[in-house]
């Protein structure tokens, strides 16, 4: 079980705000790693810097044995490192199926002229993509909604779709930013199952969440951030009992959720 993702000395400043201030994080192959911390701790910024939505102010990112610092986001995706967004980004006017078809962009492997003239080889590729899109929707349990406009779907279904868009290509690794935010307990437990199922299918996961119960249930390891630095790191049991973490985060934020 080797290291799949490693951030070394990662810094990102926004003017005077030190969103990341010298952070080291590693994720091993096959793990689910939880990343928690108070609002503004730099969790989303960590994902944005890893995938190069913003370049880091300093530091390096390694993925699958090579340095990916500074390569553009679509190249990061091409290497098999996908992500989902905190605001659950979708293509609102697209059908559910088209959202996932777009998510399978990297699997489509078409060229411009064959797509324009609808050649047999293009149609074959698209059939394969559609098959995979349907399978993705099936495993997310939203197959029945495939033709519905995604913004007309229920909140919970949109969230499952957002995750499906991230994992449709069966990436080696996915970064999930608050996939359970604003869901009710039943939906949270559904998403928890979904996340576990994604890991069991062979995808390594780093997950940012404020919901402590599912994080402690899911994760092999938990990293706690505060003000752009690592406050603590350990197994869920260790983190739950860590005095510093209780003081700065759990105590104030989610001690009830943690038990």
């Amino acid at each position, binding site marked *: 079980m080797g290291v799949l993702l490693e951030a070394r000395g990662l810094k990102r400043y926004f003017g005077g705000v030190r969103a990341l201030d010298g952070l080291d994080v590693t994720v091993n192959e096959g793990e689910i790693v939880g990343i928690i911390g108070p*609002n503004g701790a730099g969790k989303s910024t960590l994902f944005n810097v890893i*995938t190069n*939505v913003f370049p880091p102010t300093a530091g390096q990112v390694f993925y699958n044995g090579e340095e990916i610092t500074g390569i*553009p*986001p*679509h190249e990061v*995706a*091409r290497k098999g490192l*996908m*992500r989902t*967004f905190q605001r659950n*980004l*979708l*293509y*609102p*006017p*697209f059908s559910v199926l*088209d959202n996932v*078809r*777009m*998510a*399978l*962009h*990297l699997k*489509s492997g*078409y060229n*411009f002229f064959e*797509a*324009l*003239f*609808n050649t047999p080889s*293009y149609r074959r590729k*698209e059939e394969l993509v559609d098959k995979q899109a349907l399978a993705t929707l099936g495993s997310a349990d939203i197959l029945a909604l495939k033709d519905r406009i995604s913004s007309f779907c*229920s*909140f*919970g*279904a949109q969230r499952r779709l957002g995750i499906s*868009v*991230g994992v*449709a*290509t069966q990436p080696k690794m996915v970064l999930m930013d*608050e996939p*359970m*935010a*604003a*869901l*009710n*307990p039943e*939906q*949270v437990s559904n998403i928890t199952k979904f996340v576990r199922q994604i890991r069991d299918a062979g995808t390594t996961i780093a997950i940012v969440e*404020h*919901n402590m119960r599912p994080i402690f249930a899911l994760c092999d390891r938990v990293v706690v951030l505060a003000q752009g630095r690592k406050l603590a790191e350990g197994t869920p049991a260790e983190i739950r009992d860590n005095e510093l973490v209780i003081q700065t985060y759990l105590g104030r934020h*989610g001690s009830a*959720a943690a038990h």
Partner: protein
Amino acid sequence: MQQIKRLYHNNSIGLMVVPLLIFPIFAGGNPYLMFTGILALYTIGVTLTLRLKLSSYLLDIAGHLAWVGMGAYFSSALQVHLGWPFWVNLIAVPPIVGLISVLVAMPAIRTQGVYLAIVAIAFADIVVLFFGNMFTGVFGGHGGLYALPGVNNLGPISFGKDDHVAYYFLLVGIMAFIVYILRRIDRSRIGLSFRSVREQADLSEAVGLNVYWTKVLNWGISCSLAGLLGVFFAAYLRAFNPDEFSSAAGFFLMAYIIIGGRGHLLGPALGVVLFVVMRESLRSLELWQSLFWGVIMIIFIMFIPDGIYGLIKRGWEWGIAFRARQAAAPVPAPAAVAASTTPPPSERVGPSSG
């Protein structure tokens, strides 16, 4: 039969075929009507190529005619000075225009939002200045080009000055090609990726799409199709000057699109037809026309932002809903009553735990 039905059903463009074919039958003998019809159709073509563009700013519209102009100037110059027949230019010029548009856009597309629109407009005016002042021996300077040779005869088909019907069907053919390309783009993954960038470029990037090149490709296709129409424009009119492609002229395009509506391919077409009909019937207003159009534009922007197409569509939907309500009103079925009293299942419960 089934297929014809389906064609008509999912293809509102099909609705245009019949009037397009009938028009020359009753207008064929009247050169003025044919001339107006051809220019209207050409303008519809320009709005179609414009509609493909990803940028969401109305302002970029004003720069679009520059690419039509480039097609017109290049094909005229190639025809007059190098003797290239029209038919060769029809195939060769659009890719050249597309290539130039891509080279111009590559730095501009890196800029965001309204800056791209400003670059597009500025570029249109640079094009006008270029054709008005440079290589005047080839491009004719501010006076423009005139006495151009027009379309070369094609076997028995003659494209003389008065062969409006021949030009008309040539343009219908060009339009059919443009619509075919636009439809194919729309229904393939190319269109999906264009729309995805319009909706949520950050997500497209995250799923591995090269958003920058997608925008460049989109721009290049739109501009080269505009260039294709320019090749026709030059050959049909046989005379034009650089101002016809300026951003000022481009503001008329904006009027068609605002008045007709942006929601559908047919929207701008409606705008063009309405504009042409109104202009002809408002001739007596003379200079007051500009003021009239200005007021119309303001009214549309403020009160009818989705244009006439949007109005018709809403009216249509309202009609359907009204009829459905009328049909349902007299005897409400018991099942429907039961269903309407059950509260809809709400999934959005639970407080944010953030």
